[in-house]
């Protein structure tokens, strides 16, 4: 398959050159922020760091972090680095975890963001001959505007559908031969089911690719969407705080997302100590905006847990890759010194043929953490033989040990026996906190 790039020089740039480029941009960006954002200048002063201490990306670790709490404290203008009259756009988060985040954009910021989305569309096989249906929400949410802009830059015929009204989505898709769809994976699955119900087979659907993001989804879900729609499904990642979708995107290899690291410098840190971790280690993803003018966040802690990799990619891109986030630092448990995420347990359960109905119970006995996981059995797994149930528990514990690095005690329980409050099961009971 021939490889297409939107900005080949950047996307296939030798790593050393990229690092040089990042260093040059970082030095300028730190000065820009220090001079224009009193909030961050105070943080740097408190840490005793001056802009001249940052000579390249090797000095990045010296800079203070920004967190969601800083964004709340500085709301709405506290992190703005350009006069308002130079800004042309605001986008905002849903505000589900507290106060909304408002992000400001200059025209240049919009241009760079749309370039990032264009790279994602081209990596998914998009060209000017394509019809791109954007079914992300439009408005304050970044999904619609970002992919819409990217689609224009690639030269696709853009269908600005926004989300919802599935009947109309299907009508436009079929009548106007949409070849690429951009939306959340759950909406893609829903559209797929609706098409199936209406009797459309994958080969009747004109789509060839989908670019899906803005929410967590599993490999299983990807395969399902690919089958019902007859497409290749590509992951895309982003956050309003840095720009929106397009911070990273998947290529045809589908083994992680290439970060647009000429604009967004990525680090992985230990969420407990803040220490920078070497490539390949799992930790919290931190981004530094290298080019943003209006809302340039330095060392912003995303709270997403993931891994970075510079392994050579078959698509030819040299941009560093990030794994799909495995969880949020908010959910992280530390058991016997090991970081454990409920999402990892969920993955093991799905792989081993269980429903993700479980409860983690952590306690402390004789100064050692105990780690128990109750898992609901499927009715068809139930057997009259005790030995078989014990063997199932043991095999599940081994699979968890492989994934987590520590051994839980598994207890198979009856279906629906794990207490649900308002339909949602309580996933973690950490009794250690009571002590």
């Amino acid at each position, binding site marked *: 398959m021939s490889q297409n790039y939107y900005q080949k020089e950047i996307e296939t740039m030798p790593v050393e050159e990229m690092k040089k480029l990042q260093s040059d941009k970082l030095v300028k960006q730190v000065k820009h922020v220090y001079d224009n954002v009193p909030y961050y200048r105070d943080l740097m002063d408190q840490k005793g760091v001056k802009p001249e201490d940052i000579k390249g990306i090797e000095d990045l670790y010296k800079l203070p972090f920004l967190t969601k709490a800083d964004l709340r404290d500085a709301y709405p203008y506290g992190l703005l680095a350009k006069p308002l009259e130079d800004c042309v756009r605001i986008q905002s988060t849903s505000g589900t975890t507290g106060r909304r985040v408002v992000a400001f954009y200059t025209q240049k910021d919009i241009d760079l963001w749309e370039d990032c989305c264009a790279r994602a569309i081209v990596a998914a096989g998009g060209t000017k001959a394509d019809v791109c249906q954007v079914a992300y929400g439009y408005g304050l949410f970044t999904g619609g505007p970002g992919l819409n802009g990217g689609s224009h830059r690639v030269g696709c015929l853009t269908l600005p559908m926004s989300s919802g009204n599935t009947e109309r989505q299907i009508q436009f898709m079929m009548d106007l031969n949409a070849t690429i769809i951009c939306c959340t994976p759950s909406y893609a699955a829903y559209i797929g089911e609706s098409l199936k119900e209406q009797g459309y087979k994958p080969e009747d659907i004109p789509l060839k690719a989908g670019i899906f993001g803005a929410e967590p989804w599993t490999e299983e879900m990807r395969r399902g969407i690919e089958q019902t729609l007859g497409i290749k499904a590509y992951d895309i990642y982003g956050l309003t705080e840095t720009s929106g979708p397009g911070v990273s995107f998947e290529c045809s290899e589908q083994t992680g997302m290439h970060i647009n690291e000429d604009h967004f410098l990525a680090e992985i840190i230990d969420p407990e100590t803040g220490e920078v971790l070497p490539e390949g280690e799992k930790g919290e993803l931190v981004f530094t905006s290298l080019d943003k003018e209006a809302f340039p966040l330095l060392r912003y802690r995303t709270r997403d847990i993931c891994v970075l990799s510079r392994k050579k990619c078959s698509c030819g891109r040299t941009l560093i890759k990030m794994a799909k986030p495995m969880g949020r630092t908010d959910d992280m448990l530390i058991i016997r010194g090991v970081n454990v995420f409920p999402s990892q347990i969920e993955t093991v359960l799905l792989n081993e043929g269980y429903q993700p109905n479980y409860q983690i119970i952590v306690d402390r006995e004789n100064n050692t953490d105990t780690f128990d996981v109750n898992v609901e*059995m499927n*009715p068809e797994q*139930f*057997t*009259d*033989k*005790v030995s078989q*149930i*014990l063997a199932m528990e043991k095999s599940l514990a081994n699979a968890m040990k492989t994934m987590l690095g520590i051994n839980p005690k598994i*207890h*198979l*329980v*009856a*279906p*629906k*026996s794990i207490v649900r409050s308002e339909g949602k099961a309580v996933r973690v009971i950490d009794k250690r906190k009571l002590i």
Partner: protein
Amino acid sequence: MSIKQLTVFVENKQGTMVAITDTLAKHNVNIRALSIAETEAFGILRLIVNDEKTAEKILSEEGYLIKITDVIGVKIGDEPGKLSAALGVLDRARINLEYLYAFMSRTEKHAYVVLRVEDNAAAEAELVGAGFHLIADADVLKL
């Protein structure tokens, strides 16, 4: 010829057993034989009842995990050496026994043994061949 055993998953905590037996009593289900295998966390209750369909329905409705398993019921004389003779038949045929439990008849001077093996057909053939009388679900009602 086999009989239906009702298997119930029970959490190992106070009050679980009495809740199950209460439910069965309320619906007039009579227990002919039972055995329980327990671990630290859970138990597996095995029941031979007069009406396994009703028992399955009402316990399922109460949220219990239920499985119906075919087991073998063997009639043996209530005297020393009879159980051993029956088990000897299986042993010589290299049929592995998963578990067993026994009960007495109210009317006859016989005992009954419930056997759980991997291959019912093979075990049945061996036992019948050795002259043992196996019981069916219909027989359970009369015991």
